[in-house]
């Protein structure tokens, strides 16, 4: 992997010194790595730390600040269950529990076969459809028992 620092940060590069430039590319690098590998593997971060000459602790510290970066492999299907106020009232915890039991994973965990990752999230902004969950980009609203069964089937389907 070679980082084209100037290209990534554009015009700004002219006002930054070398160290600042390197620091500035960290997030882009994380995003690139995660796009390719689905998560941030330790060995990639170690390489990045060497390449940019930023201590490993600093790289890791920056990455852990953002919720969007992951340090363990993620499933092919990312299931996000909204646990915002409206969904909570409408039984989000039942949805969550059902999925936990079905796939034998906890919140934020991934199944062993990397089929799915289960996550609880805050409000996803469509309270009218509560309780809501998403599978990758697709939204499932007003989840009831039949919809939940369908959802589980969808997740299992490869």
């Amino acid at each position, binding site marked *: 992997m070679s980082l084209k620092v100037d290209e990534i940060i554009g015009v700004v590069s002219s006002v930054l010194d070398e160290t600042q430039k390197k620091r500035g590319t960290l997030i882009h690098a994380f995003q690139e790595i995660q796009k390719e590998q689905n998560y941030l593997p330790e060995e990639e971060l170690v390489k990045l730390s060497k390449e940019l000459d*930023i*201590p490993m*602790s600093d*790289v890791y510290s920056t990455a852990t600040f953002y919720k969007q970066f992951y340090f363990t492999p993620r499933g092919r299907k990312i299931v996000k269950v909204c646990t915002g106020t409206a969904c909570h009232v409408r039984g989000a915890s039942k949805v969550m529990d059902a999925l936990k039991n079905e796939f034998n994973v906890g919140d934020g965990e991934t199944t062993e076969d990397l089929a799915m990752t289960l996550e609880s999230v805050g409000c996803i902004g469509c309270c009218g459809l509560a309780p809501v969950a998403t599978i990758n980009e697709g939204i499932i609203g007003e989840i009831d028992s039949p919809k939940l069964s369908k959802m589980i089937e969808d997740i299992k389907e490869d």
Partner: protein
Amino acid sequence: MINLEINGKKITANEGDTILRASLNNDIYIPNLCDDKRLRPYGGCRLCIVEVEGQARLMAACSSPAVDGMVIQTETPKLKKYRQTIIELLLVHHPLECPECDKAGECNLQDLAYEYGKPESRFIRSRKTTKSDIRGPLIELTSRRCILCGKCVRICSDHQGRGAIGLIGRGFPTVVQPAFGETLECDYCGQCLDVCPTGAILSKPYKFTARSWFLDEQDSICPFCGVGCTLTLGIREGKILRARGEQGKGVNDGNLCGRGRFGIDYIYSKKRLTTPLIKKGEEFVTASWEEALAHVAKSLTNIIKKYGPAAVGAIGSPRCTNEDNFALNKFIREVVGSDNIESSAAFGYEKVQKVMTAAFGTNNHPVNLESPLGKEIIFAVESDLSVTHPIFGLKILEATREGSRLITADSRETKLTRHSADWLKLMDGTSVALLNGIMHVITEDDLFNKETVTGIANFDTFLASLKEYTPEKTAELTGVPAAKIIETAKALAAAKSRLITLSLSLSENTKGSAAIKAAANLVNLLGEGAESLQIPAEYSNTYGSYNSGLRPDSNKPGKGLKEMLYDSESFLKAIYIMGEDPVINFPNSTAVTEKLKSLDFIVVQDIFLTATAKMADVVFPASSWGEKSGTFTNASSIDQEVLKLVDPTGQSVSDWMILKNLSLTMGSDLGIKKLADIQHELKSYHEKQKAPEGVKAFLTVHHGPAEEIDSRFPFKLVIRDILQHSGSMSTRSKSLDLVISEALLKLNTEDAERLAIRDSSHVKLSSKNGEIYLKAVISEDVPMGTVFVPSHFPYARINTLTQLTPEGDAVIAGVNIEHAGKSS
């Protein structure tokens, strides 16, 4: 200078100071938890808020610049209320474990809670309960006590240049940790312990040994390297329990490295000598002082009678005080009547002094520890000063942060190479060629100082000697690309100010006098003075002992170490060794051992039964650092007092006192009754030593391959220092032993594969002088065909393999590596 008014007091401050700095400099305290003068303003804790006249809002003093004419209030009812709230919020999560926390009594948070806290908090939430991370050696991380001021993280990465820990995560669950929650592996400088305002980072060796208020704190000088840092030592019930750095004190201004902070427990090693020993047959038997002194007096007198005083020699110690060494000097010269005396400086610092004198015509060459600051270019030649002299190394890092351009020439990655703008990756032991190559470019391109070189002797011969070092040839010799050599030469020549720095000690074998000569030539060529070449003396009192008479006088027929221990001529019959272990520490230990075996009588006074002491006829137990008073002179020629803080171990006695008593037993009076007598005499001795200044000269040197690497011994054995140890003294420290406890042989991955040597397997290392067994570690940092090993560990006996050149340099030796089990 600007003028401000704080709490009605008119003060002056430097332009660019923050309000907090200006205020603290004028002894006005403003509460703060996240500020440290070594670090950039952070503005994290907000406790330093102050009221500034004309400003509607409160300002954080740590991150607001002081402006001329400012009127500031730091203690008002409003501020008190705000600070109370901040403390209240911090104490919502901070567990109140003060009764079992080592920090209690010297905890900033505790102090501020005492001052501002309210007995009842308005907020109730769970306190942090995470377990302490006790996996690493020496340092314990207890994140539940952390208030996330980030001082430890910042001192580690911004000041120490290490970056071993980070603030991991976000919000409430944030913890200070190494990446991926791994075990803390760092330099173990322990600077984070000193800056932590709570008990989140604590010392493991000190843990639960004393409440801070029971400690009697006293300052003394560190016994390890030549920087001579001030240690603030915590003593309880006659035992030194810890060392810490305190800002505003000593040359280190509060900075310490791991050796000084954790290593001083070597004085409590179980292996300390407690009684005099006399060898009867093959065995040592314990003896009384009277018996041992009488035995030595009688034997020495007999030898002097039979062979004359010149048959007796002495070796002094850069670890002992000036007074100890001067007493030895007086003993050997006045009582014995011999002039054979020297110390291990002969293999290190003495060479530096001699070269500097020859090149610059001046006599004394103390370093300036502040010298890196403000230099346009700093050029570190094959030396990792952040390992040999860690606090001087910090100054170099500080200079780079302030804009100095650091160029390092080194064969392996070091802290300095990591922080340098340019890293010339040269082959070990080729710094002479590199420097000559650089000077070739400078002279060819007419970039040198033509006005000053005319006044320097031997310029023409020197100029001619550089002819052969064309960039191409130099590239071939050193492995540094020709373009890089040219670039470095041009940069050095164009710079307005420069510093060339090296280390030279007994415990490394990649460079000797020649490298220093070449560096001195470069300085002379560029028209700079001796102050542009900074080579610090190696140990705590190398500089002082060298100037306390530990060398043969130039006008007397005295012999030095080389003649005493290495010459085949056998004029020597008896030797008196104080605080030195030649068998382990000096090059070619086989030769040294043979020589010692051939002597009639050996006296060793030491704190441990060293390999040399084991060969002695009589061993005197000496008091160690901390058990005796005296002075150390650091590398910058500052005399600093070393205090007697605790009682001597067993029957041990100060070195100078042993010599005084021995002199009395031999019927001579050294003229010493007490320590002050020596100090008085030493002062006039120093006055007399001041020699007239000479002339500047170029000292022609050539690159010479250290030792033929042939098919029998195809690997280059490179000996370098490691951060956690200093000589062999530190290897007796229980704490430092926890970090690195054995001499590991590092070899290249490909070499290891070729020889089928696995990581952590035992190997036999042989040179034409002997063989030793070591554990091998496979590493990518090591160049092909080279093996690295530290010299510090006595049992490893690295010097069995080394060789001493006629010039007195320990050079890279050719070695062979085999499986330990294989028969050869």
